């Protein structure tokens, strides 16, 4: 067994490409997701068409920019400039302040501010609109607060666990699910399929080693590597993006280990049904990677999917894992809240191990 693990490590470390994928990818993915594809708004370019030009309107504009979400790209002089500004593509939103803004406001008359969004990117447009309205509300309260109003209804939304609505937080559990799935399932299935392809599997089966010893020997190095990867992702999240781990770190690591074992058993199962490395690779890519990314709720919220896809997403181990990791990290939940998800992953592990054993027996017979 010891000889086996050593040999397997030699395989991994001697293949620079595998090494690069193993350790480069988690870093790159976390950084890409963390920096680039976040869906939070930061320094969005806006144009201001200020037809009023009084003290109040400039106070509003400076409040807008002070929020950090917006950056005034330019000020327009005439409504005819709005379209060209959008066409250029830099400006995501135009805010039109009507003339007499300050005076009307002072007289407590109805004031209308027009928000024009670039809906060619509807998500961003929508989010920018929401942000602007929130700032506007805030501004209104502030200004009116100086005078007294008879009735004052305030809505105060409070975002729990992730008060700044930071996208990065979601990406850490998501990336972890993808990477662990990839490393554990894909790498093991390929490496077992390689033994079959080279004919070394036959030799191993003829040897006194029992099949379970062969499998364990092959799998242990990948457990270790996946675990290192998980730690790498968590610490990247912590040090680079400041993602907290509120819950028990020990519990989190146990769940990570469980998910790794689940992915490995899935990888073993894939290898029992694929005769060559290529088949194993394709199966892992299409059967694992894409659903993991698309259906797990990592990128698209499960609640927004059509019902059929919601059912399908229940079958994705990563969906449950993402819930577990997110809840432990951001809410500090313990086993009392997460036993259901844990049991599901545990059940899936047993299921894949069972399937692999059945498949293996069939082949030997």
């Amino acid at each position, binding site marked *: 067994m010891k000889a*086996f693990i050593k*040999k397997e490590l*030699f*395989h991994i470390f001697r293949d620079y490409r595998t090494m690069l994928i193993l350790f480069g990818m988690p870093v790159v993915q976390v950084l890409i997701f963390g920096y680039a594809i976040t869906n939070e708004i930061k320094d969005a370019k806006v144009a201001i068409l200020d037809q009023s030009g009084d003290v109040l309107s400039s106070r509003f504009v400076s409040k807008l920019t002070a929020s950090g979400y917006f950056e005034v790209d330019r000020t327009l002089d005439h409504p005819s400039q709005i379209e060209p500004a959008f066409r250029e593509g830099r400006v995501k939103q135009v805010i039109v302040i009507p003339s007499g803004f300050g005076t009307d406001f002072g007289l407590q008359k109805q004031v209308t501010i027009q928000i024009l969004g670039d809906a060619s990117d509807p998500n961003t447009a929508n989010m920018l609109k929401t942000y602007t309205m929130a700032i506007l509300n805030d501004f209104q309260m502030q200004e009116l607060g100086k005078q007294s109003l008879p009735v004052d209804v305030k809505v105060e939304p409070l975002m729990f666990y992730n008060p700044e609505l930071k996208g990065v937080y979601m990406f850490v559990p998501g990336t972890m699910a993808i990477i662990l799935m990839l490393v554990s399932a894909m790498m093991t299935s390929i490496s077992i399929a390689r033994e079959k392809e*080279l*004919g070394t599997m036959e030799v191993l089966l*003829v040897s*006194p080693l029992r099949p379970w010893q062969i499998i364990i020997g092959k799998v242990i190095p990948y457990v270790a590597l996946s675990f290192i990867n998980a730690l790498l992702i968590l610490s990247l999240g912590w040090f680079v993006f400041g993602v907290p781990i509120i819950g028990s770190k020990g519990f989190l690591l146990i769940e990570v280990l469980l998910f790794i074992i689940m992915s490995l058993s899935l990888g073993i199962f894939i290898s029992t049904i694929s005769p060559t490395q290529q088949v194993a690779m394709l199966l892992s890519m299409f059967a694992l990677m894409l659903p993991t990314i698309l259906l797990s709720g990592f990128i698209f919220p499960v609640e927004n999917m059509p019902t059929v896809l919601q059912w399908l997403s229940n079958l994705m181990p990563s969906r449950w894992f993402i819930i577990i990791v997110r809840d432990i990290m951001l809410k500090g939940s313990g086993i009392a809240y997460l036993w259901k998800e844990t049991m599901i992953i545990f059940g899936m592990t047993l299921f894949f191990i069972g399937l692999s054993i059945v498949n293996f027996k069939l082949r*030997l017979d």
Partner: protein
Amino acid sequence: MPASQNKIIVVENLVKKFGNFIANDHLSFDVSKGEIFGFLGANGAGKTTAMKILCGLSHPTSGKVTVAGYDIYTQTEKIKRSIGYMSQKFSLYEDLTVYENFRFYGGIYGLSRSEIHSQTEILLSQLDLSDYKNRVIKTLPLGWKQKLAFSVAIIHKPAIVFLDEPTGGVDPITRRQFWDLIYKNAYQGLTVFITTHYMDEAEYCNRLSIMVDGKIKALDTPAALKNRFGCATMQEVFLELARN
């Protein structure tokens, strides 16, 4: 060892069925210690199935089989320790060095570090490849890989070595050298059980069995077989048998 001291493999009425298909139909034969036993047959004649059963990779449907004195049904583990196996793909790890391959295979047979070391030295010097100990397998020519695969298969000093079409894709000269290697080891008492497609190789065996459609159609020394069928070469004997 029980009963027949000299018989290292004894097969009586071995039957293997896959559903309705009978791959091995009442095979009976035995192999003596130190013998080079050739197992011939067209593709699909059932020789691979029989060999898998002897190696413990597959279970027989019925029949009595002992390998190295151990029963195939109950003492599989002991059988596995006394046999070596070389597959037709030469089954070495391409990205490991020669020595690492020896060390790995020695390791899975439970050899100690010093045993592995001394065995590797002996086997490599036998091949004149001691200087290439630290070369990565994939940089070596096919003929060398073949010989190394054979050496790796006997690193744990098995009583019997099973060679599954070990000379596929190799040129005649290299094949000839490979047979020299087999002879050298058989002379030292190793029993060699070999399947092959090459009829010139069949002539090198001490005894041959020729399988057709799951049955053993002939079993004797190459000379006796040629005599019986009145043929000049094994090639003709084989075709004669396959035709009927």
